[in-house]
């Protein structure tokens, strides 16, 4: 079957004042339709660069990315939804206006029933009139997920969306994301530097090396679904976590193969 997303030999070099910065080097990956892939790596390993290139917000220096077989040459707002670090809501708009923002940009009437259903599902039904600064970080990020899902894109690209949240809120958000994902069957590429989060969510975890970001290892996570927070305390989970931590630290040079 043709992959939903295909990354072919992606490299990115930024021109900075102190010389070229190699963010990503010869990275390739296939993402299947409906798959939840986590991209894991330390800070500054090109994770965000990769995601921005997938979304058409960035050009690659070499290589290309295909979505449904066609190369990505710019934003594809009908097919891709982005979820950013810190909810990235517009602070001068209330929640509802924020969620309707993409409709405004696309000059389409907002799909109110869909928005209402999503707001109810994420527990935000009563907060449509609230300003972002009146809400907690978790609620803001839930609103940003609603904003992306209201567009009903086939692919969700998530850039460390829960990185700024506390551990408890993060668990809650991960459970919510998994529920939404299992209901909608979307393809999700989820960037994180949190190993436990990556294992918890993913079908596959793709580990990148420190800058320049290269493929270190791909882990198939065959923990049963639906997953629970309790599973993160089980020996199999912790073993995987320790192994993955070593891979991140060594850049994959001493990786043990995991079944």
């Amino acid at each position: 079957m043709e992959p939903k997303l295909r990354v072919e030999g992606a490299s990115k070099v930024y021109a900075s004042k102190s010389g070229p910065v190699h963010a990503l080097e010869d990275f390739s990956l296939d993402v299947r339709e409906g798959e939840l892939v986590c991209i894991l790596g330390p800070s500054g390993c090109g994770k965000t660069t990769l995601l921005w290139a997938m979304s058409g917000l960035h050009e690659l220096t070499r290589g290309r990315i295909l979505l449904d077989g066609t190369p990505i040459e710019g934003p594809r707002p009908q097919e891709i939804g982005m979820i950013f670090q810190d909810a990235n809501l517009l602070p001068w708009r209330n929640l509802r206006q924020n969620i309707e923002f993409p409709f405004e940009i696309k000059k389409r009437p907002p799909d109110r029933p869909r928005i209402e259903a999503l707001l109810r599902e994420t527990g935000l039904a009563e907060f449509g009139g609230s300003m972002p600064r009146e809400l907690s970080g978790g609620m803001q990020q839930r609103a940003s997920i609603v904003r992306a899902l209201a567009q009903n894109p086939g692919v969700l690209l998530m850039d460390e969306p829960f990185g700024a949240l506390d551990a408890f809120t993060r668990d809650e958000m991960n459970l919510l994301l998994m529920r939404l994902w299992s209901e909608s069957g979307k393809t999700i590429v989820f960037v994180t530097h949190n190993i436990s989060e990556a294992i918890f969510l993913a079908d596959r975890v793709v580990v990148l090396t420190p800058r320049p970001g290269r493929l270190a290892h791909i882990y198939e996570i065959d923990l049963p679904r639906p997953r629970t927070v309790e599973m993160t305390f089980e020996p199999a989970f912790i073993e995987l976590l320790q192994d993955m931590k070593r891979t991140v630290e060594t850049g994959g040079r001493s990786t043990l193969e995991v079944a």
Partner: protein
Amino acid sequence: MSNVPSELRDEIPSFDAKATGDHGPIDWTGLTSIRTAKSALEIGSIVALFAAVFFGLELVLRWTNTPTYVFPKPIAVVKTLANEFTAVYAHHLWVTMYEFLAGYAIGAAVGLLLAALITQKPFAEKVIAPYVLIMVTTPMIAFVPFLRLKMGFGSWPLIIAVALAAGPMVMINSATGFRRTDLAKIALARSYGASTFQIFAKIRFPLALPMIIVGYMVGSIFGLLTAVGGEMVAASEQGGLGRDLVYYSSLARMSEFGATILIIAILGVLIYVIFYFIGKRWASWEA
């Protein structure tokens, strides 16, 4: 790959900083965030202090038998204002307001437009910066006698002076606002396929709005100053509050003089209050 948004092309994604851009050479933002009284005690104290100063001054002036030509008694000033408002002051107030509003409308509109245009090109901004600074720092009242000489005794010399005083203030603050960039928010809009104009209208402009409002407020204060000051130097044949000040002080008619100052003070506070509520409505997200 020509559809990749240009402003993101070679920026390393970073979310550490929020909107970048400072408050410009002069930070006027304090003007829109003066702490206001809320409780009855606070409001009561403000009223009590006002009454104490007002009636205290009246008492001291009576007690010391200070003649009116030295210092007018507050009650006399208020009486003069009430008795002669329609006969005398209304006309002069209108003249000053007309000069101020016309000049301010022109100056603020041009200032905002220039700020929006100039910030698109850093080169143009750098070239123009010294001239804007000269315009901001030069008291435009100085040009009024010259303009009067060239343009006669109508309202235009003062309208132009007000525009020249208010415009650069609006421009310098608005430019600071437009210079703010928030890459993450631009990326958000771009990911939904926003055009460059949509980025301006829906991201850059709202992001700049708090600074624009501050610019409009500072501009209005400088505009009023220039209108009144300009009238003191060379009023039109219609007069105006500035000319009243010169006229009454030269005749030592201090009650009338005081009443004129009272009008100007109320005008100034009124302008402030208007902008305070505009700021509260459209810029409160950035508290």
